[in-house]
């Protein structure tokens, strides 16, 4: 029976080629726009570490002066000052914990007459790699003792290893960074979580390539490498000694494996702040311990423009669906006589309804295929845009499937009204009129 409906639908669509092309085209445009913007939105609001994000937490405290503080309303600061970060790290209350800041590393290639270049770098502490599941191609991270000992060592990203050592195992070799020789202890596999959650608020970009150089915080500071972003909350006597200045420039992450551990850590954090208040260092008691996705939501990491574009695309799709309803209705009402004949020959209302829904579905599928093409074109356009997430805009299998779901749903919704109108048509007057 379905095959018969298919044949009827195709014949009917062929009879009125211009109208059919118009419907498919409009639907495809709407679907193309929707899928393009949804792909970008999904990409930008995705989970950077799906297997781990529920266990990662971002503690926040507030060392600012009392003025302007409203208890329960004022949000704590995004970054942390050095003494607080170190105190939280040394308490070892989480499974893993690390402090980090972004910086720029001047890399001096060994090759003769190669020019030095700048690379994105992270200065952090030993747990960084284990906590964020950063995968190693060669070697591994460094030990906690290396942090305290200001060991002259470094972990580099695979792409930097490819550039400097042609992809060979470079563990144990020496790389010159900021005029210091550092020994390579590990080479990462390609690793660039999107969004770059750990770089959020540290003065770097929220999306895009991963960092090239990872080095121990104390080592980097001894080499006079400075953080990309510094926020000071009191008059600064000497900005060069960031460790003692009243300035925040570190992000701290903690891995907590159970609900009980999270509750414990929050209690510990509140206790720490109360202790600092008692010591006279702090005046504000507000703390926060958001999980990774909660932190990204609070930071509103997805650009407003992208949300706006998605909304716009849905509006566009809605108009295209209304358009399709109108055209399908027009088509079906013109075929009143044909419906009358079919009904008179014994077709039930349900059969007529199904026939018209099949026709709408075919329009939807065609719109989906063409819409997929438009979406690919749209994503190509996005990849040529200047945004930092541009290179990531690709259609994945899931969005590929979703395109057809959207197309079918849109066309079937559009088809309901015309199909219903067709099936409730009384056959007798139509036959007479014909």
């Amino acid at each position, binding site marked *: 029976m379905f095959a018969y409906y298919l044949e009827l639908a195709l014949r009917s669509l062929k009879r009125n080629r211009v*109208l059919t092309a*118009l419907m498919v085209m*409009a639907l495809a*445009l*709407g679907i193309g*726009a929707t899928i393009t913007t949804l792909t970008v939105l999904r990409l930008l609001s995705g989970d950077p570490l799906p297997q781990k994000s529920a266990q990662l937490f971002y503690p926040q405290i507030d060392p600012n*002066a009392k*003025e*302007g503080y409203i208890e329960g309303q004022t949000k704590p600061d995004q970054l942390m000052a050095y003494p607080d970060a170190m105190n939280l790290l040394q308490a070892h209350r989480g499974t893993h914990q690390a402090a980090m800041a972004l910086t720029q590393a*001047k890399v*001096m290639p060994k090759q003769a007459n190669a*020019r*030095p*270049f*700048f690379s994105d770098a992270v200065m952090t502490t030993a747990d960084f790699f284990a906590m964020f599941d950063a995968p190693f191609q060669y070697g591994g991270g460094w030990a906690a003792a290396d942090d305290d000992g200001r060991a002259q060592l470094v972990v580099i990203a695979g792409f930097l290893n490819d550039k400097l050592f042609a992809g060979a195992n470079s563990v144990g070799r020496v790389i010159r960074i900021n*005029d210091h020789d550092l020994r390579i202890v590990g080479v990462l596999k390609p690793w660039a979580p999107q969004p770059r959650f750990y770089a959020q608020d540290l003065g770097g970009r929220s999306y895009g390539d991963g960092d090239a150089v990872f080095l121990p915080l104390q080592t980097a500071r001894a080499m006079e490498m400075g953080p990309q972003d510094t926020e000071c909350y009191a*008059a*600064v*006597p*000497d*900005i*060069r000694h960031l460790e003692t200045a009243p300035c925040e420039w570190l992000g701290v992450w903690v891995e907590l494996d159970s609900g009980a551990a999270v509750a414990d850590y929050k209690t510990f954090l509140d206790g720490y702040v109360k202790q600092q208040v008692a010591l006279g260092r702090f005046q504000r008691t507000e703390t926060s311990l958001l999980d990774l996705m909660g932190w990204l939501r609070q930071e509103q990491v997805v650009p*407003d*423009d992208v949300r*706006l*574009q998605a909304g*716009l*695309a849905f*509006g*566009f799709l*809605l*108009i*295209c669906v*209304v*358009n399709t*309803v*109108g*055209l399908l*209705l*027009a*088509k079906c*009402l*013109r075929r009143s006589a044909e419906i009358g004949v079919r009904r008179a020959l014994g077709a039930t209302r349900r059969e007529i309804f199904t026939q018209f829904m099949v026709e709408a579905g075919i329009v939807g599928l065609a719109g989906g295929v063409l819409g997929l093409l438009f979406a690919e074109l749209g994503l190509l356009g996005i990849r040529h*845009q*200047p*945004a930092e997430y541009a290179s990531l805009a690709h259609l994945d299998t899931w969005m590929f499937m979703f395109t057809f779901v959207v197309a079918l749903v849109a066309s079937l919704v559009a088809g309901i*009204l015309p199909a219903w*109108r067709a099936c409730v048509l009384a056959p007798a007057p139509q036959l007479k*009129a014909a």
Partner: protein
Amino acid sequence: MDILPILSTLRRHKVTAFLVILEIALTCAIVCNAVFLISQRLERMQMFSGVAEHELIQIQAVSIGKQNDAAARAQEDLIRLRQVPGVTGAALVNQVPFTNSSWNTSVKLGPNQKQATLNATQYFGENLLQTFGTRLVAGRYFNADEYLDFEAVQRDQKLQAKVGVIVITQALGERLWPGQSALGKTIYLGETSVRVIGVVAGLIRPSLFNGDASAQWSMAFPLRMNVSNANRYVLRAAPNDRDRVIAGAVAALRKADPHRVIIEKKTLDEIRSGFFQNDRAMAGLLVGVCIALLVVTALGIVGLGSFWVAQRRRQIGVRRALGATRRNILNYFQTENFLLATIGIALGMVLAYGINLFLMLHYELPRLPAIYFPIGAIVLWLIGQVAVLGPAMRAAAVPPVVATRSV
């Protein structure tokens, strides 16, 4: 034109009429808001910078290795740069407009004030204002003997108190002391205070992280930078000389120190264009969507119009046979479309207002100006009329003899 017969016909085609109205309403609502968004973006791209944009070049050069005499290196660099043919001014500065990297501080109006009044950006660099080409509207620029070395000031807290004077923008003065002249007023930064000796018409902040409203909150200090604490060389040259000057300046800098990394060499026009690239892309996208929407709507009207005409061929034939002219038939369909469009536009306006309210709530957008409503209405009326013209002409071409054909 008689409207009543049209209304009674439309009453018999409620669903189709409703679909046309709905499509026009949705299009009207979305296009009004999209055009408003486009105008907002275009307006933002025109933002006033206060500097001689078409004459400026920024070269970012970083030295590798320890600089033993960073101050001397900076002075030598600047002398070499000023010798490059075409260069009319050169300065080593801490920050440059539209580069998204800025030094900021909180500003207070009294020594005992606890909470800062606002956050403003700090421009440092010898001859910065003269090189940037800002326009002085009151007071004066810094004298040569007022400049201090930034490095020394950073190292010695006592010297901080000696940075006694600043130049601010008109907008910042107006924000701090509304209705008064900023000249001679004192502001407090951290532990020190400074007196305003000059006011410039404008000098935009390098990054607008605090929103566009604070774009002009800038201060310039009499501080001299060196190559260990600044790496942005700003050059001024006639617009036509800029390309030649960039090449010459890079060569001059490399000659002075071969171990340099030139991170960036761009005209300020290029930097500005990069700064607003997201706005440009968004405006382009919105224009595309608007056109696509209007085309889809117009095609929808053509499609439904054609169907309608085909369905009413006999009715048209009867009217023609009873004496209606071709013009009457044409007018009939045009008026019908005008009626549907008017209802659609009225609904669309309400919807447009609602969408605008939603956007105001979520995206900090201003209210939709009233002028968009009449313009939106005219555009949709026109599109409706153009779209219906084809089907209406076909209707007018129906011969009266159709009325006599078999039932």
